[in-house]
């Protein structure tokens, strides 16, 4: 292969792992945070549903007692 081309492209392959790692880890960090938010929201929504049921139950019980 042309020695000048070899020299021109000499840093491309050695830098590739760092370049790929930089982009992959950047998106991984974003993804982890999004997943944490989604998990937290789902848990809070489930708790809210349970509380709504508990409130409804309490309301119907107090109505029947009257």
């Amino acid at each position, binding site marked *: 292969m042309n020695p000048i081309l070899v020299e*021109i492209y000499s840093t491309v392959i050695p830098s590739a792992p*760092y370049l790929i*790692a930089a982009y992959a*880890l950047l998106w991984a*960090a974003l993804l982890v*945070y*999004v997943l944490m938010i989604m998990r937290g929201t789902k848990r809070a*929504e489930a708790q809210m549903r349970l*509380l709504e049921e508990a409130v409804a139950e309490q309301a119907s019980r107090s109505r029947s007692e009257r």
Partner: protein
Amino acid sequence: MTKKTTKLPETGQWPDRVAPAVLVAGALLTTVGFLMAFLVVPPVGGAAVGGAELIGGSLISNKLLISQKIFFFHMPVAMVSFCALAFAAYYCVWFLVTREQRFDTCAKIAMEISLLFVVMTMITGEMWTRFEWGVWWTWEPRLTTYLVLMLIVIAYLVLRNMIDEPERRATFSAVIGIIAFVDVPICFMVTRLIPSSIHPVVVREGGMSPEMGLCVGVIMAGMLCVGFALYRLRFRQVRLEQRVEAVKELLED
């Protein structure tokens, strides 16, 4: 005389209505920026080689530095981390003025977002430093001030978990939030103020071609959109959790 009431940030307001569209815009802009970085912007030249070759219609006589492509995301995420810290400081000041817990909640979420972007800046920066400078870490002024910034943000979040009393926790946190923001201009200007700094300063050196500037602009707009959408998603989650706690307390009473 009527007392002026402070309008509190709440879920369901216009920012929540636009947040999904903003998130999609952010994803699109960052994808376009990513493609531009690799397909439109030509690679930056490094050390000169002993000759010249015609590549893609241009005469190349330097080593092609592909590692520089990291910069296209590194700088925008760093700028977004500064923006998030500015918002955090704004809410910290509002908390100290009004003593409304809602502003403390907003400040906490903005700090979380800033930590996320600080971590992303550190990751991309570390990868570039390792390849270009041959070390994982060096006590260079920009890196050091940015590390200090990251430690202050972490200290803010750790402190919040250590204090139970909400009023005291919010007051101490607000002070640390403002201190964190004070480090932002120091961090930004340090490479300009200390000549021995080896961190590249592309804006001062005029090292950005129009294509590079456009690419950085597109990715920065995209990352700002992503940061905003994440802030609103997290705010929605935290407010929902606060409502759950409030209803639980009511039921227990």
